[in-house]
């Protein structure tokens, strides 16, 4: 049999730089690796010494897509460290912020990055010619999500309106009513896009690998903003214990740290959330999950794309519910929160589009950051991608090289990885020209 050498450097239609390496000879795989080659980000070191109110704006710059999630995880960590309570109205607005980000990110991924694979083309550009209506519908949905983020967070990315202690400026009820109407208008457009995805979902490979799924869980809602850290393999734990859940370790071929918990690897993201919380989805989202035949626990990582679409629908419906609650309860203009800094340590855990995100800060008594640690969802998925490769590649070896490559690329893309966000370690030591990596924080 022939030799197969696949080296995708770098994978396209994902955020950041990652390589796929596959070497096989006579039907046996010699090497299969998911390599992360992005430079380290060093965010944890440059927030040291910064005052508490600057941490969220700085750490939100870790990512342009999950900037709202990073801001909220950062604020929750700060608020936990300083025992700050936030009002119920602010909590609801923050939940809307998370939904806005989920809407933005999921439609971007499913619409612009995954759809080309389903239609068998290289990018979204040819789709503009062949399926203009669908592409325009996706652009419209994305725009509405951006407008919602702009209103709640002050910007479409890198929020200015979310501050320690609550919300800087409460949005006006009139603007919220507009957003509510926009969300209702999104439902038929979303349904139309869903039908197109459903018609082409056969292009997603049927691959199954049992793994551990980790996501936030609560008793009363589809957990995104708040909750305990749940797992398919163990009882829910408090986010404070995140270090015993993520168990980070370093591998020589990746600048991002890898993680594992009870099994060889675990997955976070839309599919993990669906697998743990499916019964708490909104009615229309449940309907769409049924149409796609998505049932918990689904062990096919490619179904993460579908789970993202289901969550997209859930976010629309749940946002309308939250806005109704806010408007019925009588919104009031809350004053800009004032915070008295104090020393302490806190962990913030939030579900962002790509999965579970942890921020941990330690503050001195003046409210300056002494130590920080951010564990990014893609970071936790790298190991699972690698394990999936090892299980998926042997089933592909009898196919042409191009097809193997495409399938492996689609697998990585299904995770919606945010690679450059995930490269968080310190201390690279160069010894005699060879690189050895030491774990930092």
């Amino acid at each position, binding site marked *: 049999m022939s030799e197969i050498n696949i080296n995708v450097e770098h994978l396209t239609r994902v955020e950041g730089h990652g390589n796929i390496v596959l070497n096989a000879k006579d039907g046996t795989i010699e090497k299969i690796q998911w390599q992360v080659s992005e430079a380290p980000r060093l965010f944890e070191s440059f927030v040291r010494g*910064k*005052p508490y109110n*600057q941490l969220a*704006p*700085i750490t939100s710059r870790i990512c342009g897509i999950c900037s709202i999630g990073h801001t909220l995880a950062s604020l929750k960590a700060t608020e936990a460290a300083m025992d700050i309570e936030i009002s119920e109205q602010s909590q609801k607005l923050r939940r809307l912020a998370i939904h806005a980000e989920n809407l933005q990110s999921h439609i971007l991924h499913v619409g612009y990055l995954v759809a080309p694979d389903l239609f068998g083309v290289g990018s979204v550009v040819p789709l503009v010619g062949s399926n203009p209506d669908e592409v325009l519908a996706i652009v419209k949905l994305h725009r509405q999500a951006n407008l919602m983020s702009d209103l709640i967070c*002050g*910007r479409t990315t890198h929020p*200015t*309106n979310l501050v320690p202690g609550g919300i*800087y*400026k409460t949005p006006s009820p009139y603007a919220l009513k507009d957003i509510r109407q926009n969300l209702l208008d999104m439902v038929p457009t979303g349904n139309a896009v869903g039908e197109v995805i459903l018609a082409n979902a056969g292009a997603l490979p049927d691959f199954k690998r049992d793994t551990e799924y980790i996501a936030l869980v609560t008793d009363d809602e589809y957990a995104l903003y708040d909750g305990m850290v749940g797992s398919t393999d163990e009882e829910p734990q408090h986010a404070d214990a995140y270090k015993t859940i993520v168990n980070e370790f370093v591998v020589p071929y990746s600048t991002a740290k890898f993680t594992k918990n009870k099994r060889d690897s675990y997955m976070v993201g839309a599919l993990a959330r669906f697998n743990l919380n499916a019964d708490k989805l909104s009615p229309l989202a449940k309907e769409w999950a049924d149409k796609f035949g998505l049932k918990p626990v689904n062990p096919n990582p490619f179904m993460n794309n579908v789970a993202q679409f289901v969550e997209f629908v859930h976010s629309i419906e749940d946002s309308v519910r939250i806005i109704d609650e806010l408007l019925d309860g009588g919104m009031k203009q809350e004053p800009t929160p004032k915070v008295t800094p104090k020393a302490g340590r806190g962990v913030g855990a939030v579900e962002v589009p790509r999965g579970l995100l942890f921020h941990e800060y330690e503050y001195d008594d003046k409210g300056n950051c002494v130590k920080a640690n951010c564990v990014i969802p893609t970071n936790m998925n790298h190991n699972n991608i690698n394990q999936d490769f090892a299980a998926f590649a042997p089933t592909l070896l009898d196919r042409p090289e191009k097809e193997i490559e495409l399938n492996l690329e689609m697998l990585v893309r299904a995770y919606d990885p945010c690679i450059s966000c995930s490269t968080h370690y310190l201390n690279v030591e160069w010894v005699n020209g060879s690189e050895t990596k030491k774990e930092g924080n």
Partner: protein
Amino acid sequence: MATTSFKINIVIDGKDYAGEPNQTVLDVARANSVDIPTLCFNPLFPEQRIGSCRLCLVEVKAGGRPGLQPSCTMPVSSGLSVSTISDAVYQARRTVVELLLSEHVQKCRDCPVSGECQFAKLCRDYDINGVPVCAECPNQGEGCLLTRGELCLGPLTYANCNAYCTRKGYRCEGCHSIMANEDILRFGLKAYKDAGFTKEEILVAAKVFSYDSMEMLEKIMTQEGF
């Protein structure tokens, strides 16, 4: 039989337009929503054509003396063809804005025009960094975030964002970085002094996006008696 008024056909950016005999190229362009910036032309007194700011320059392609001409004083003539978007026009206008900016007294926080500043818009259109966020910010006077106790970095920060954050009532984080013009910084710092902010507070806030400018800012603050 109705009298048909006499029309003169001219070409602007490759498209045909009709003008009256007493109109200028600028008039025809404005009547047809073709953007030509002006500063010295006052729409309240359309008969006064000073032609001194040179922002309305267009390039004559045919039917007149070739080269750059001010459109506000150029009468329409049959067969005239001009471009408002050529590279030569853009570069000439950009130079004009730059030269005006070099002479401009940067007292945006006192200027009555601030908030709807034509000049700030021109700087934005022609990609010139020179005015602070205050020039584009509508929160003048009572509405100024500084006077309300917010550490807004607007007076020290390059504009060109149309005051995206302050317009909505959030403080400026200084993401376009601290300006390099020491005179503007000196003027802006007075506002912080009036509002009672300390040197330490301002430096900590400015450091996030402008680490390179810390030395200069600290030097000026010391000179200004912070």
